[in-house]
């Protein structure tokens, strides 16, 4: 058993920031991560990191933009804290040596970005995330913070009182990938989950293969509800074979989208008569998919993004990295041919329900980064708002876990925050299939935190043994089934029948999962085992997304429902909560907090 004050699970931007902050405040921190820190997907972020740095800019403008972008589903305490602290965090990064792009006078550059009222996206070339990740890892090395890399966290050690708000998290169980050893990590002051996105719930995503929603699923099964899971951002221009992102910059520079008949469909089919290709992400994604579904896609799969008319000089000057991406990952020379693109899953707005300090309803459990939902992005995230989020909330959670925060959170969490029951109308049972899936641990009966952890470790050892020993099907079949149905039915377009179909398919996949087995008998670097466990997490996340999407009968932000084409503020200004409840999930709602520090945000028409 390893013992530390704070266990941080995941070492992307959010986890590293949390670890540094907790360490600065005297805590003994361990970073436990399934990938070496620099391999985290934060490294893929290109565009930039928003912060009101200029003297003409101010935090409340940033907060306002964020709230408007969220389609008024953000919670004001989180939004305000975010906008207020983002500038400090960006300057902090600079002081840690991040190589931001510079103006002639040596100050950091900022550029305009969609949905922002001021150019406040600070950037480091077209690889902001890469630099942010490496800069923070450097600081972790400098401080000598202990990193357990290639340790896969499989479960949390949580007591099992009936009410999740009475439960406590004492640590996590991790599997050392290289050796197959299962070990307990005891965290005196808590566990911070920072496991990133869940793009692998879809078969086409800009996310990494390791983004499997592990944190969300682990917290969910331990009793912490998932919030606003139906809000998934789809990016309109990703390469069809890999999902690699083709930056919005191409359309910004004048790139044009064509369908198979070489029609400029954004205009010719009237999707966006004013902005055309530059309409917002969700509009363009829906337009592309409509074309494809109506048979005007190329090879029934994608559309063309053409930038050849911009001329070689301009392309080489401003979009050179796009040429490399298209060539390296799709084998297409963008100077010579139009690039194939289609919408792909990009970002998960929802996640583990936490307050503005990153605390979940379970005592000692925190979540930060993309896996968390402090209700900052609400129904739609603005570009460049995720990286500052990692920093601000990573730091807040780190500070809180180190015992440095006295204030009480304004955002309420857990079942007691419930304002209203919900209903899903699912055609099938949801949640666990077998009894064994129901309980996190026997914590309620166990005396000491160590006992809780030991019990959790034992349970995981059993699970690993069973998976390796028994015969059965390959998890890849289950994963593929979920991914396909999610992309087919819970994509950009959401229709009641399709959502129900997805729930049926997920149920079937869950049943299939009962028979999965790991074929590789080895204890050494058994990725078969890791992927098999991940697939279980994907199932839970996919179900939560679909359940939320089916429940929310309106069109808000990234969530589009065919039969409900408007935003219904009277009825739906509330968060969708999805709780595990020992294997029998329950959907309910909690109110949105619009009263901020300075003002109360008034829902307005979201038009740009």
């Amino acid at each position, binding site marked *: 058993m390893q013992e530390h004050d704070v266990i941080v699970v995941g070492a992307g931007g959010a986890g590293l920031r949390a670890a540094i902050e907790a360490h600065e405040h005297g805590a003994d921190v361990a970073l436990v991560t399934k*990938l*070496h820190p*620099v*391999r*985290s*997907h934060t*490294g*893929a972020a290109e565009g930039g990191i928003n912060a009101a*740095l200029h003297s003409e800019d101010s935090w409340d403008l940033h907060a306002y933009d964020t709230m408007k972008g969220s389609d008024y589903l953000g919670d004001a305490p989180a939004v305000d804290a975010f906008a207020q602290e983002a500038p400090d965090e960006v*300057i902090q990064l*600079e*002081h*840690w*040596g991040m*190589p*931001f*792009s*510079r*103006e002639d006078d*040596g*100050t*950091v550059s900022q550029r305009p970005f969609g949905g922002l009222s001021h150019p406040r996206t600070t950037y480091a*070339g077209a690889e902001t995330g*890469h*630099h942010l990740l*490496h800069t923070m890892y*450097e*600081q972790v*090395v*400098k401080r000598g913070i202990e990193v357990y890399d290639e340790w896969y966290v499989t479960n949390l050690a949580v007591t099992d009182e009936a009410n999740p708000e009475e439960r406590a998290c004492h640590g996590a169980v991790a599997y050392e990938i*290289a050796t197959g050893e299962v070990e307990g990590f005891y965290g005196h002051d808590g566990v911070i989950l920072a496991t990133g996105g869940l793009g692998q719930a879809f078969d086409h995503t800009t996310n*990494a*293969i390791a983004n499997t929603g592990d944190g969300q699923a682990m917290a969910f099964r331990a009793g912490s509800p998932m919030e606003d899971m139906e809000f998934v951002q789809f990016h309109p221009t990703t*390469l069809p*074979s*890999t*999902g690699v*992102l083709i930056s919005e910059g191409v359309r910004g520079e004048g790139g044009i989208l064509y369908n198979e008949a070489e029609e400029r469909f954004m205009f010719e089919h009237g999707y966006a008569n004013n902005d055309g290709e530059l309409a917002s992400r969700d509009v363009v994604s829906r337009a592309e998919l409509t074309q494809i579904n109506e048979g005007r896609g190329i090879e029934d799969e994608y559309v063309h993004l053409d930038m050849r008319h911009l001329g070689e000089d301009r392309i080489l000057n401003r979009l050179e990295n796009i040429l490399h991406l298209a*060539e*390296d*990952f799709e*084998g*297409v020379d963008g100077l*010579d041919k139009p690039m194939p693109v289609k919408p792909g899953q990009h970002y998960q707005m929802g996640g583990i329900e936490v307050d503005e300090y990153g605390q979940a309803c379970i005592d000692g459990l925190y979540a930060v980064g993309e896996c968390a939902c402090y209700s900052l992005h609400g129904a739609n995230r603005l570009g460049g708002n995720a990286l500052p989020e990692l920093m601000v909330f990573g730091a807040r959670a780190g500070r809180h876990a180190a015992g440095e925060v006295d204030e009480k959170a304004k955002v309420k969490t857990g079942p007691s925050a419930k304002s209203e029951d919900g209903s899903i109308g699912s055609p099938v049972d949801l949640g666990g299939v077998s009894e064994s899936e129901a309980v996190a641990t026997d914590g309620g009966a166990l005396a000491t935190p160590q006992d809780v952890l030991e019990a959790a470790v034992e349970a995981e050892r059993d699970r690993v043994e069973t998976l390796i020993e028994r*015969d059965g099907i*390959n*998890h*890849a079949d289950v994963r*593929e089934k979920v991914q396909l149905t999610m992309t087919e039915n819970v994509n950009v377009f959401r229709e009641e029948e399709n959502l129900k179909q997805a729930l049926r398919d997920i149920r079937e996949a869950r049943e299939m999962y009962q028979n999965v087995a*790991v*074929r*590789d*008998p*080895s*204890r*050494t*670097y*058994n*990725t*078969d085992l890791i992927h098999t466990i991940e697939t279980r997490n994907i199932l839970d996340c996919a179900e939560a997304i679909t359940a939320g999407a089916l429940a929310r009968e309106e069109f808000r932000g990234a969530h589009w429902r065919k039969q409900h084409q408007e935003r219904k503020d009277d009825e739906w200004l509330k968060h969708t909560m999805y709780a595990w409840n020992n294997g029998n999930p329950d959907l309910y709602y909690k109110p949105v907090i619009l009263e901020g520090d300075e003002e109360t945000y008034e829902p307005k028409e979201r038009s740009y």
Partner: protein
Amino acid sequence: MSTQVTEKSDEKEEAESTEQSPGERRREEKAKRQQEKEAETPELIDEADETVELKIFRFDPEVPDKEEPRFDSFTVPYFEGMTVLDGLIYSRDNYDSSLTFRHSCRQAVCGSDALLINGTQRLACKTQMVDLEWPIRVEPLPHQDVVKDLVVDMEHFYEQMNAVEPYFDPDELPEEDREEQKQRPENREKIKLSTRCIWCGACMSSCNVAAGDNEYLGPAAINKAYRFAMDEREGGDKKEDRLRILEQEHGVWRCQTQFSCTEVCPKDIPLTEHIQELKREAVKSNLKFW
């Protein structure tokens, strides 16, 4: 629980022996297509039933069958734009789930999947199959211990990276709270390429000196040090410290300008140039004391 290649793939392998390898054919076709750029409709080749053979290194210290290293053949369907990583994933998911390799981002930023592909260190995700000779031979990075299949022990590489004090450490910071340190755009430009390193280890694996001398810092770590030593925000005192680290026995002097590091780096970092520049810097700073 067989770790053998499925029979299906073996059969295909036999049927696969034409005089001209598909790789050659496709590369020829690609060249032809490039010539015919202006021609109206470049002829579309039917790729529907084209397959690629991958010869993959296998080893597992624990599985009796795999204790002796060997190569397994997997024949996978080819599609346009297919990368070597796609081929590996297909083989694993469809033929043998025990096939083990690191991968994550699929877009050349995480640095997990540097492998020896047809004899050269490359990122599997960034390597188009068309650009290679077929069948494609995939091995773990040379000069590193193999943990299993294509997974090598990266510990030594990380240690070398950490040995150069790989973190920003300025002599002083601005007084004001929300004030950034100034950096001239030219200075940022100077360190730009060096900051792109994704820790894939390809360079280190390709360097013969690093293979011979285990303590040699290696191109990636030296490049990391370059990134800080050349950053004007750090200040002169720190630069002296950094040069002192680089100058030790197993530092920059070990480099014999083999250039293979520069050639394999997937981020096109001019590693040899950076190392050479540091050698000159070191000489300069030593001359100061004489």
